[in-house]
């Protein structure tokens, strides 16, 4: 036979438990719109009867009420890690896409004013000079148009260079974002471990850590591994970024401007005395590295090819011509403004200042425009500057389109994953309301049990054995 008052304590345990459950429901409702919040559920467990039968045990087998065994955090870790992988890929691709969008802005084709049109004006200028070889105004206009083309090439190169530098600066700040997120994860790891060993709930801390992990995944494509003690290890490119309560730091090393990029490659290194190279294979950081190491240098190189083709083809033909009062063949029209050999988009400039020196005539002393006519035909050369520039623009278009489509698809995949994740871990208000009603009713019922036990005891204590009083 159990204790006389055991019914009271059973009802009391229910009152405690239902109230705790109501509190958790309240917490869920309160955080219905909190980013990263994971719904919680009170795990109830019936308190069993004395488990070990003893000689004098007279227990009749009824349980001792209910306890809260755990407040569990309802998040699917498999969905989480998939979500992180998709987000890492999405942020890599969208960073790549924005690189290409900015590159497209640099060239601003097709238009009536950009470099292709400037080149067109330049060739038309040669046509006009061929028509009026003696007219100095027409010659001066041609020189002006040559300068515009050279400026256009230089401006495009400067824009690429500026984009490179701004991406480089951005990469530094991304690296410090990674470091602060890694520190935060390490700190949270430590706290969670302590809470857990003290038997205290750490669900909200785990939510915060998940947010930080997502941030790390988006930045670096980091992967994670959970450990028994509740901590999470973070790996970047196979090396650990966070182990338990310890975080390592990343630094960006290498060139700070496009000009020195090829000799001093930009790299991520671990912030330690040995400074080993960290291979970051995903996320915004990897996209930034691609932009700095591959994409921008590639287009800067192609632009240099356009400049070199322009200077080469024009100068070669121009040298065959004669100026207005010269008996010697004309000199070079396009020169390296920095001095030295080789002409690139950065150094191209017009070397002739006197319009009379333009090599328009095919024979010395003649007022003849046939060399100018041949120069106008450079436009049509298959290996000329126009063709090189067209192939640059088209190549850029194809790459940009591909990047855009891949990013679109990946963003949709990531959004779907987010929906799945928030459906799994988010708060459903209908569900919470239903739970609230059932907890409330259970509380009321427990109170009723208490009342009836009380009434029972009242009968026993106050109204029993009154015979003869």
């Amino acid at each position, binding site marked *: 036979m159990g204790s006389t008052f055991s019914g009271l304590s059973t009802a009391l345990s229910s009152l405690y438990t239902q109230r705790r459950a109501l509190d958790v429901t309240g917490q869920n409702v309160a955080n*219905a*719109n909190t980013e990263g919040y994971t719904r919680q559920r009170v795990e109830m467990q019936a308190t069993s009867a004395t488990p070990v039968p003893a000689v004098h045990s007279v227990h009749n087998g009824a349980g001792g009420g209910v306890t809260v065994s755990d407040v569990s955090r309802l998040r699917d870790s498999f969905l989480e890690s998939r979500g992180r992988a998709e987000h890492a890929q999405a942020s890599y691709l969208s960073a790549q896409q924005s690189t*290409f*969008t900015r590159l*497209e*802005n640099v*060239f601003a*084709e*097709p238009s*009536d004013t950009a470099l*292709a*049109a400037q*080149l*067109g004006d330049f*060739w*038309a200028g040669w*046509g*006009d000079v*061929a*028509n*009026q070889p*003696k*007219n100095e105004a027409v010659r001066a206009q041609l020189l002006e148009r040559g300068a515009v083309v050279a400026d256009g090439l230089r401006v495009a190169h400067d824009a690429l260079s500026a984009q490179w530098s701004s991406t480089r600066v951005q990469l530094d700040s991304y690296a410090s974002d990674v470091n602060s997120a890694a520190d935060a994860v390490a700190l949270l790891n430590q706290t969670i471990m302590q809470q857990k060993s003290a038997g205290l709930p750490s669900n909200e801390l785990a939510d915060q850590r998940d947010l930080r992990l997502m941030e790390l995944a988006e930045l670096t494509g980091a992967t994670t591994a959970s450990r028994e003690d509740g901590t999470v290890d973070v790996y970047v490119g196979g090396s650990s970024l966070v182990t338990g309560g310890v975080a390592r730091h990343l630094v960006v090393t290498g060139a700070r401007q496009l000009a020195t990029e090829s000799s001093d490659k930009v790299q991520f290194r671990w912030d330690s005395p040995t400074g080993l190279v960290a291979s970051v294979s995903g996320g915004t950081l990897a996209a930034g590295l691609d932009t700095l190491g591959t994409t921008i240098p590639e287009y800067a190189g192609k632009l240099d090819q356009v400049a070199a083709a322009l200077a080469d083809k024009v100068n070669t033909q121009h040298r065959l011509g004669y100026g207005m009062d010269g008996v010697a063949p004309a000199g070079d029209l396009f020169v390296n403004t920095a001095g030295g050999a080789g002409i690139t988009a950065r150094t191209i400039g017009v070397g002739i200042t006197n319009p009379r020196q333009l090599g328009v*005539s*095919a*024979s010395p*002393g*003649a*007022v*003849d*425009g*046939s060399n100018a*006519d041949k120069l*106008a*035909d450079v*436009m*049509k050369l298959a290996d000329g500057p126009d063709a090189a520039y*067209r192939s640059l*623009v*088209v190549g*850029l*278009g*194809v790459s*940009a*389109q591909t990047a855009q489509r891949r990013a679109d698809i990946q963003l949709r995949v990531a*959004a*779907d994953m987010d*929906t*799945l994740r*928030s*459906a*799994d871990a*988010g*708060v*459903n*208000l*209908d569900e919470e*309301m*239903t739970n609230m*009603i059932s907890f409330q009713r259970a509380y009321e019922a427990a109170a009723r049990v208490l009342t009836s036990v009380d009434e029972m005891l009242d009968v026993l204590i106050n109204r029993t054995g009154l015979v003869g009083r």
Partner: protein
Amino acid sequence: MAIQVRVTQQSIAARVTASLQNNLNRMGDLQERLSSGKMITRPSDSPTGTVSSLQLRSEIRAVAQYSRNADDGLGWLSTLDNTLTSSVAQVRRVQELTLRGKNAGASSPESRAALATEVENIREELIGLANTRYLDRPVFGGTTSGAAAYDSNGVFRPGPTGSVSRTIGDGTKVRVDLAGPEAFGTGATDLFAVLDSIAGSLRTNPTALAGDLNNLNTALENLQTKLADVGSRYNRVEQMRQTADDRALTLRGQLSEVEDIDLPQTIMEVQLQQTAYQAALATTAKVIQPSLIDFLR
């Protein structure tokens, strides 16, 4: 969309927000197209379209230049044509004067001297014609750097002997000048020498006029042949210019086909998109609102 067991207010909100965002994005794209009137505003809109667009633009420029070259060539050729026509008339007049001087056996030395003076005047005039200039360039001077093709004595000034041509189509060059000796003859049939000789013969030796007249006829025939040649070149350039202008129109049409939007279609698309967007907004407002809270007392 994957089948979900569980749906939460947040997941619905996220999905709806994403869909509305997509909708609005498409609206934005369509509006941009409509307001710019262009299908292609950046290479990634259509890489192949961009190639065509760049090529068409450069062709349009080239054709416009051909047209300008042809206009310039027409200027040269019409100047030549006018000059040669006047020259022919003048030479005919000399022919007439020479015949008069030759035939009128009764004519006095005084009247022949008067004829000789007129011939000399015409010669001066013809030298002037031979030095006709177009845009400051002597049209009979080829690529000479001098200001005139003939000196005041009617002697052709040898200089650089190149000819002047204009590019009026892909690989098509047309000569637009005529060298002085080609038009006015050389050696015995050099028009100015012949005229000089006629004037001399009229004054002193009327019997030599017969030979002079033969030479004059040869020079005249030559002038007429060249006049016909210039005329046919004029026609050719004129035709090529017409072709260039037509081609420019065709190219512009093609460029517009590649780059420009189909207005009715785009407006239709905008309308459809607008309807879809409004419908999405309306249903979202209805679907997102209710929850169990509304029905609990």
